[in-house]
């Protein structure tokens, strides 16, 4: 928490600063979605038969769903109809990304990541973080591969994993989020073009943080990436994703799927700093962030921990969840979701307790400013066999101004009477007395609000790796710009 107040102040005066477009020649397929498009994507990626089959099954499932009922309607968000035929499903920088060297990556793309503060040239890299960079539909570079390989860790783009480790992909793909899971997960399964793949073998502690940076660049293009992380017995991995997009007037769809599998005694820590373009002050444009994230604690004593800081997107619809199958397994969810201007978020988690003595912790901090609408939706389910299960849920909402909204929908289902459940919830407004107190000590009203909000989010920020905690604080300040005074 070392960001000084004046940095925050400088940042509060900025608007969305990642909104530029990179002029890069892209290989873009025509708009629209049908079986041929799915085949084309699969062919472009040189996929084996089993992948195409899986995609086609997913497409048919989705197509039937789309015709029958369209998107799910239960979320507390409003948006106009999405025309799935008026969207591009594959767009990649034309220069073929090399898997061996950064030299062959389009320099414009490299410059884009540099501008975003994600240098891909390894000598400039923050020590200890390996990055996979996904530009529109494809992964353009993965750093520190050799070093990771020495430890036995596989960290590569999804396409590469399909080519080089088909047995692992085949075994785990769809094992946590099947293609029939939900509308957007089906769509993703049909058309996903890339993403990250991580496999940490037995007993290996991944020697560095792994990170994927997603960038949407092309217009009228959906981004559908898929991440699969498998931590084998006793393995340990910490993974972070970040994301940005150019400022555009039309909405763009981002429908990702993340699957995590933790075997016996394995730990996966998954952190997200989500900063897709949120739309302008009037609510025009912005990303529809409809994402399915789920982890399975398959083995005994395994642990999956989700930390998310959601500041971007016009609409966020996501519930990073844990299925606690193994006895004594642990699921955690720490979330900060901020909605400003006309942003809408419906986010939370699901903790499904199946094994004995499983425990879960949910800490959700929702901040609503401007006309923002923020919904926490969480499910805690204790199944019959989950003797000795425990859950602690804390769900706090903070309102800034009087035009925003905070909503809470907790669902608790207990089928085993030995379960111990705790649920705490609060809704507060930033007090005039708090702001005045800080201003009397010399801070501007924006600095004061920023400080109060950072304090409100502290429980979540301290779960983030250090550099990202600092970035998250800065992001909150920027996202709140104009919401005070």
């Amino acid at each position: 928490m070392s960001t000084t107040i004046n940095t925050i102040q400088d940042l509060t005066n900025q608007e969305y600063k990642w909104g530029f477009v990179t002029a890069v020649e892209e290989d873009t397929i025509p708009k629209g979605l049908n079986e041929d498009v799915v085949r084309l994507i699969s062919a472009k990626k040189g996929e084996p038969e089993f992948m195409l089959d899986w995609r086609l099954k997913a497409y048919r499932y989705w197509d039937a769903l789309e015709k029958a009922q369209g998107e799910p309607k239960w979320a507390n968000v409003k948006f106009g109809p999405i025309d799935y035929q008026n969207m591009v499903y594959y767009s990649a920088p034309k220069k073929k990304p090399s898997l061996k060297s950064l030299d062959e990556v389009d320099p414009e793309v490299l410059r884009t990541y540099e501008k975003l503060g994600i240098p891909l040239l390894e000598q400039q890299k923050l020590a200890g973080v390996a990055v996979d960079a996904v530009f529109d539909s494809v992964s353009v570079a993965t750093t520190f591969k050799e070093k990771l390989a020495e430890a036995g860790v596989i960290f590569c783009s999804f396409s590469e994993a399909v080519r080089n480790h088909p047995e692992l992909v085949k075994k785990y793909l769809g094992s946590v989020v099947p293609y029939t899971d939900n509308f957007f997960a089906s769509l993703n399964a049909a058309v996903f073009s890339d993403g990250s793949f991580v496999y940490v073998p037995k007993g290996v502690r991944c020697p560095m943080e792994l990170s994927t940076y997603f960038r949407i660049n092309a217009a009228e293009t959906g981004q559908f990436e898929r991440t699969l992380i498998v931590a084998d017995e006793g393995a340990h991995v910490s993974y972070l994703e970040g994301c940005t997009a150019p400022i555009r007037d039309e909405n763009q769809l981002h429908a990702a799927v993340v699957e995590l599998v933790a075997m016996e005694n394995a730990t996966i820590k998954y952190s997200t700093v989500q900063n897709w373009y949120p739309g302008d002050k009037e609510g025009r444009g912005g990303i529809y962030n409809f994402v399915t994230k789920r982890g399975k604690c398959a083995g005994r004593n395994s642990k999956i921990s989700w930390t998310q800081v959601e500041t971007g997107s016009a609409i966020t619809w996501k519930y990073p969840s844990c299925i606690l199958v193994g006895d004594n397994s642990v699921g955690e969810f720490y979330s900060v979701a901020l909605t400003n201007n006309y942003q809408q978020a419906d986010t939370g988690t699901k903790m499904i307790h199946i094994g004995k003595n499983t425990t879960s912790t949910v800490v959700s901090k929702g901040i609503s400013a401007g006309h923002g609408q923020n919904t926490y939706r969480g499910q805690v389910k204790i199944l019959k066999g989950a003797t000795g299960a425990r859950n602690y849920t804390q769900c706090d909402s903070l309102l800034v101004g009087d035009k925003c909204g905070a909503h809470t929908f907790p669902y608790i289902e207990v089928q085993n009477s030995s379960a111990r459940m705790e649920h705490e919830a609060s809704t507060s407004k930033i007090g005039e007395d708090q702001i005045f107190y800080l201003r009397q000590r010399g801070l501007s009203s924006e600095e004061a609000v920023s400080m109060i909000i950072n304090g409100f989010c502290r429980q979540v920020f301290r779960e983030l790796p250090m550099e990202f905690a600092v970035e998250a604080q800065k992001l909150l300040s920027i996202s709140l710009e104009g919401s005070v005074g």
Partner: protein
Amino acid sequence: MSLLEVKDLHASIHHHEILKGVNLTVNAGEVHSIMGPNGSGKSTLAQVLARREAYEVTKGQVLLNGKDLLAMKPEEAACEGLFMAFQYPVEIPGISNAYFLRAALNAVRKYRGEEELDAMDFLPLLKEKMRLLEMDERFLNRPVNEGFSGGEKKRNEIVQMAVLEPRMAILDETDSGLDIDALKIVAKGVNTMRSKDRAILLVTHYQRLLDYIVTDFVHVLVDGRIVKSGGAELALELEEKGYGWTEPASAAAR
């Protein structure tokens, strides 16, 4: 030039006039005490001087070091050297005392064109001030005022004053809610802060704080006006005779 000059100050809250023409001059190096019964407008005066926006100034002028205080925002007044110790210090959950105070000090230093202090420079300074106020170092990392006892909160206000080194310090009923030991510690802090460059304005209901702080002037505020001013002996007289004693004078002042 006086450090603080209040001329015919009228102020209202929710269209209800509380201050009805306050005049007060405070010079550097002086300690003034404002005393008065409940509801006389003591705290309102402190809040107006600290620029709390809920109060509307309807008439009058206030100069802080020659500058128009009433044109300043609260943070500008703070950066110009005005500090108010709150009667009810506010809790800021999740923000440590040390982080908050460094941010405040750096805001003030930045305003004055001074270099900001990093944590390494700031911590020894803060620890020294805390020793002075006999506050445990564990308060450094505790969230601002959260879970503090009443007395700890008041002492924390004085720590802040000691760190920020204001030129004009206003203590709004800092003595209320303090036991005698805490009162002595607070008084010691205030006495240590006395200097020829600094003025202190104590707002208090009871005389007992003045047993430990030598005040140069006492002003009696009744119904939004200062009805009587004098030296330290006035406080003792008030203690003895009660505020009722000032009422004829108050009537005469009208």
